[in-house]
C-alpha cells in the first residue's frame, strides 16, 4: 500500500505545535458534542449521524491495520457485530448494565482479533484476506443459526442505552465524544514506537525485523487494536439503534468498511472519518442509484486503487505538500553520536564466532561448513566471486535465513536460533545490498525506527536527538525531513547506515555498501568506515572493490562455492594461490586489484 506519511516537521516545534493542535481539537470536540445536545435533530438525521460516528470508529481500526501496517482485514463487520451483539444480548437477555455489556463486547472483539492474528499473521497477506473472510462467514453463520442465543435472523430488539444517556441527543453526544477521542488516539499512535514499527513493517517487513522490530508482534498488535475498535464501534451502534440483526454484519458490510477507509485515505484518521461520512451520506443523496449502488461501490474501489491509491485525504495532502513552499530542514544543534554502549575495547577479543555453519538450498551448498572469527574493533572483509555465498552467510549471521547446521556465537552467547530482531537487540546491525528503507516514511522516522531498541533507552525527546545525531554522523542531517524516496541513491545508502548506527550496534554487517556509488561517494564511504572503526565499532563488510577493501580491512576472509578458501591478513590472503585462482580462474602472480570480480 503506497500510503503517504506526514512530511517531517521541525522537531523543536513539535511540542508547542501539538499542544496548540490538542487545544483546538478539544475545542472542536466540545463544540460538536454541545451541538449534538443543543440542536434538536429529526429522528432521520439522528440515525444518520449515529451510524456515521459508530461506523467511523470501526473504520479508524482499519486505518491502523490497513493504513499504518499494510494488512488487509475483510472481517471488520464481524468484529463490529461481536461488539453489537454483546450489547444487544447483554442488555436484554442477560440484563447487564450497558457499560458492562460494552466492555464485554470490546474485549470479545479484541480477543477474536488477537486469536485470528496469532494464527495467520506469520503468513503472507493473501492468507490474511482468506482467514478474515472465513471468520466473517463463520460469524454470520453463527449469528443466523444459533437461534437459542442470538435469536437468529429475527434479530434482537429493545436494546437499552445507559441510564443517563437514554435520549437520542445525549447518546449521539457520547458517540461523537468517543469518535474524537479514538481519532486522536489513532493519530497520536502514528508517532509512537508502536506506530513507527507498524509503518516500518508495512514498508519493508524484512528490514524492520533486521533493525530490531518484532514484525509479527507488531502485526498482531495492529490487528488486535483494529478488531478492538471494530467492537467498540459496534457496541455503540447497537445502543444507538436499539435493534440488531445478522445481515447488518455481513461480508458486504466488511467491504463497505474497507471502501470507506480506502476512499477517504487509509493512512490518516481524517481520511477514515471523511470516507465514512461520504459513504454514509452518498447513498442518501444518490437514492436514484438504489439498485446498483453496491455495483458502483465495487467500481469505485477499482477506480480509487488505480487513480487515487492514497484516498481523498492522501491526495489532498500530496497536493498541499506540492503547493507549500518547502523549507529546508533545520536540525538545530546536534550532539555528537554516542556510538557504542561500552567503552571501545581494542583488546582483539572475539565478538562473533561461527562454527561449521552451513546452508543448503536443496542440493546446493550455498554456505558449506564455514568457520569464521570476527575480532572486536576490526574491519573484517568478506570477499569472493559472484555466487560464492557471501550474502547468504550475512543472512545467516543476522537470522534472515535459518541455517542447515552449525552455530553462531555473538559475545559468547549462542544466537543461532534467535530471530533477526533479537539479534539486532543484542547489537547486530546490518545494511542491504539492494537498499531496504521504509519508503513512505521520512528520513528521520527511518532512523528513529532503528534507534528504538531496548538497550538504547533514551530520555524523553532523546530518541529524535539520537536519530539526528546518527544522521549527522553520516553527514545528511539536513535531509532529515525529506521522504527517503526523494533522496539520491548514495544518500539512501547513508540513511541505511545511519539507521543501523542509531541502534548502537557492536557489530555492523555491511553488504556491498560501495555498490553503485561514484568515486567521490566511495571516498566518503571509506572515510566513514574508518571513523566508525575509530569509534570502537566492529565492521564486517562484503565488497567487490578490492581497492576499497585493501584500504579499510584489517582482516579478510575469502569464500568460493560456499567454502572458506582463505582467511588472514590482507597482504597474505590476496597473494594466496587459491584466491587468485578463484578470481582469475588460473594461477597467475597478479593480484586482483580494484577491478572487482571478473
Amino acid at each position: 500500500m503506497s500510503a503517504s506519511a506526514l512530511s517531517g516537521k521541525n522537531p523543536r516545534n513539535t511540542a508547542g505545535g501539538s499542544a496548540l493542535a490538542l487545544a483546538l481539537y478539544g475545542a472542536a470536540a466540545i463544540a460538536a458534542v454541545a451541538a449534538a445536545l443543543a440542536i434538536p435533530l429529526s429522528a432521520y438525521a439522528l440515525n444518520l449521524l449515529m451510524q456515521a460516528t459508530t461506523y467511523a470508529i470501526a473504520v479508524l481500526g482499519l486505518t491502523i491495520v490497513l493504513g499504518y501496517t499494510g494488512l488487509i482485514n475483510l472481517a471488520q463487520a464481524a468484529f463490529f457485530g461481536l461488539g453489537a451483539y454483546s450489547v444487544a444480548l447483554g442488555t436484554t437477555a442477560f440484563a447487564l448494565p450497558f457499560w458492562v455489556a460494552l466492555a464485554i463486547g470490546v474485549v470479545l472483539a479484541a480477543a477474536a482479533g488477537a486469536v485470528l492474528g496469532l494464527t495467520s499473521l506469520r503468513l503472507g497477506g493473501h492468507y490474511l484476506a482468506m482467514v478474515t473472510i472465513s471468520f466473517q462467514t463463520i460469524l454470520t453463520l453463527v449469528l443466523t443459526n444459533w437461534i437459542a442465543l442470538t435469536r437468529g435472523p429475527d434479530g434482537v430488539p429493545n436494546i437499552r442505552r445507559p441510564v443517563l444517556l437514554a435520549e437520542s441527543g445525549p447518546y449521539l453526544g457520547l458517540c461523537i465524544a468517543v469518535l474524537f477521542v479514538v481519532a486522536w488516539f489513532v493519530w497520536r499512535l502514528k508517532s509512537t514506537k508502536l506506530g513507527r514499527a507498524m509503518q516500518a513493517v508495512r514498508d519493508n517487513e524484512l528490514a524492520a525485523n533486521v533493525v530490531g522490530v518484532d514484525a509479527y508482534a507488531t502485526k498482531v498488535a495492529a490487528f488486535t487494536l483494529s478488531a478492538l475498535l471494530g467492537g467498540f464501534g459496534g457496541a455503540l451502534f447497537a445502543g444507538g439503534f436499539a435493534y440488531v440483526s445478522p445481515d447488518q454484519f455481513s461480508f458486504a458490510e466488511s467491504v463497505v468498511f474497507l471502501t470507506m477507509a480506502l476512499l477517504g485515505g487509509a493512512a490518516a484518521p481524517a481520511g477514515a472519518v471523511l470516507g465514512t461520512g461520504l459513504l454514509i451520506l452518498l447513498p442518501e443523496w444518490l437514492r436514484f442509484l438504489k439498485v446498483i449502488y453496491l455495483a458502483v461501490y465495487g467500481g469505485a474501489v477499482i477506480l480509487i486503487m488505480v487513480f487515487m491509491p492514497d484516498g481523498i485525504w492522501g491526495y489532498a495532502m500530496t497536493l498541499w505538500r506540492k503547493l507549500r513552499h518547502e523549507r529546508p530542514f533545520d536540525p538545530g544543534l546536534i550532539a555528537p553520536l554516542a556510538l557504542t554502549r561500552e567503552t571501545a575495547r581494542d583488546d582483539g577479543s572475539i565478538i562473533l564466532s561461527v562454527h561449521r555453519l552451513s546452508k543448503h538450498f536443496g542440493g546446493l551448498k550455498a554456505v558449506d561448513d564455514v568457520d569464521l572469527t570476527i575480532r572486536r574493533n576490526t574491519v573484517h572483509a568478506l570477499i569472493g566471486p559472484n555466487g560464492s555465498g557471501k550474502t547468504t552467510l550475512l543472512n545467516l549471521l543476522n537470522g534472515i535465513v535459518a541455517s542447515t547446521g552449525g552455530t553462531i556465537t555473538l559475545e559468547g552467547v549462542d544466537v543461532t536460533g534467535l530471530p533477526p530482531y533479537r539479534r539486532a537487540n543484542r547489537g547486530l546491525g546490518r545494511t542491504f545490498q539492494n537498499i531496504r528503507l521504509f519508503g513512505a516514511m521520512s528520513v528521520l522516522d527511518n532512523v528513529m525506527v532503528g534507534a528504538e531498541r531496548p538497550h538504547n533507552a533514551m530520555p524523553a525527546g532523546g530518541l529524535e536527538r539520537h536519530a539526528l545525531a546518527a544522521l549527522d554522523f553520516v553527514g545528511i542531517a539536513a535531509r532529515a525531513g525529506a521522504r527517503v524516496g526523494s533522496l539520491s541513491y548514495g544518500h539512501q545508502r547513508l540513511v541505511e547506515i545511519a539507521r543501523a548506527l542509531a541502534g548502537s550496534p557492536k557489530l555492523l554487517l555491511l553488504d556491498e555498501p560501495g555498490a553503485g556509488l561514484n568515486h567521490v561517494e566511495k571516498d566518503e564511504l571509506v572515510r566513514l568506515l574508518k571513523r566508525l572503526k575509530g569509534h570502537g565499532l566492529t565492521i564486517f563488510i562484503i565488497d567487490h572493490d578490492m581497492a576499497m577493501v585493501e584500504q579499510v580491512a584489517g582482516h579478510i576472509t575469502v569464500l568460493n562455492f560456499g567454502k572458506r578458501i582463505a582467511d588472514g591478513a590482507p597482504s597474505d590472503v590476496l597473494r594466496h594461490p587459491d584466491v587468485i585462482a578463484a578470481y582469475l580462474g588460473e594461477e597467475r602472480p597478479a593480484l586482483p586489484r580494484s577491478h572487482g570480480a571478473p
Partner: protein
Amino acid sequence: MGFNLQLLFTGIGVGSIYALVALGFALIYRATNVVNFAQGDFAMLGAFAMVVLAIDLELPYWLSILITLALLIGFGALFNLCVYYPLRNRSFLPVIISTIGASILLENGVLAAYGPRPQSLDSIFSIPGFSIGEIFFDSQYIVILFVTVVMVALQYVFFERTLLGKKMQATSQDKEMASLLGIPVMGMIMITFMYSAVLGGIAGVLVAPVLFVTVGMGSSIALKAFAACIIGGFGDVTGAIVGGIALGVIETFGSAYVSVPYKDAFAFLVLFVFLLVRPQGIFGERISEKA
C-alpha cells in the same frame, strides 16, 4: 455402507467443482503472485451467460456453451486490462483490493440486470443418472469429474510439452528474467487471465445444473476453492485438486453427520486447522523473501 459411498461420490463431485475453480486461482497466482478474488465470479458469469443464451434466447445447448466460453475469453482480457494491468507494478495489497472491488461490481451488476430470483438450468443430459446397487450416480457430477480430469491433463501437457506453456511457466517464476529472454511478459499474463476466465466459465457451465444460478454462487464456490488452494499448497496444481476434492468430501460428510446449517463452516474450520498446523499446505514449500 451404501449411504457412505453415496456421500463419498457426492463429495468428490462437489469437490471437483472446487478443484476446477482452484486451478484458476493457482494459475493466476503463479503468473502474477496475486490472488484473484473475482475468480469465482467468472464461474457466476459463465452460469448466467448460459441462462441467457440457452433459456432466454433458446439457443442450442452446445452452441450456448461455445458462445459462453468465447465471451469469457474476452472478459478475461478485459478484466486484466481494467483490474490488474494498471496496478501491475504495485504491491499485492492494491491488486487484491482491486479484484475484490471487481467481484462486488460483477455480482451487483448482474443483480441489477437480472434480479435476485435464482435461475435454474437443465443438464445437457436427458437422463439424470444411473444406479449401481444403492448408489446413485448423478450424470452431471460424472461430467464434472470427467472435465476436471481432462482439464488437468490438458494443463499438464500444455505446461510441460508446449513452448507457450514453458514461456508462461518462465514468466510465473521470474518476470524480469523472462522479459530479458524476450518473452512478452504482459502477453503471457494476458493469456493467463483469459485462460483462467475460461476455466471459471467451464466451472460455471458445469455447476449451473447442480446448483441454483445466483449472483452469489461464484463467491461461495471461490471461497471454498481458495481454502482448497491453501490446504493443497498455494500455487500448486496438484494441491489445488487434492485440496478441492478433500474439502468437498469433508463438507458432504459434515453436513450429513454433524450439522446442515453449518455446512459452509466445515471448510473454514479445516482451513484454520491447516493454517495452525501446516500453513504451507499439503504440497507446498515455505518460501522466504530474498535479502
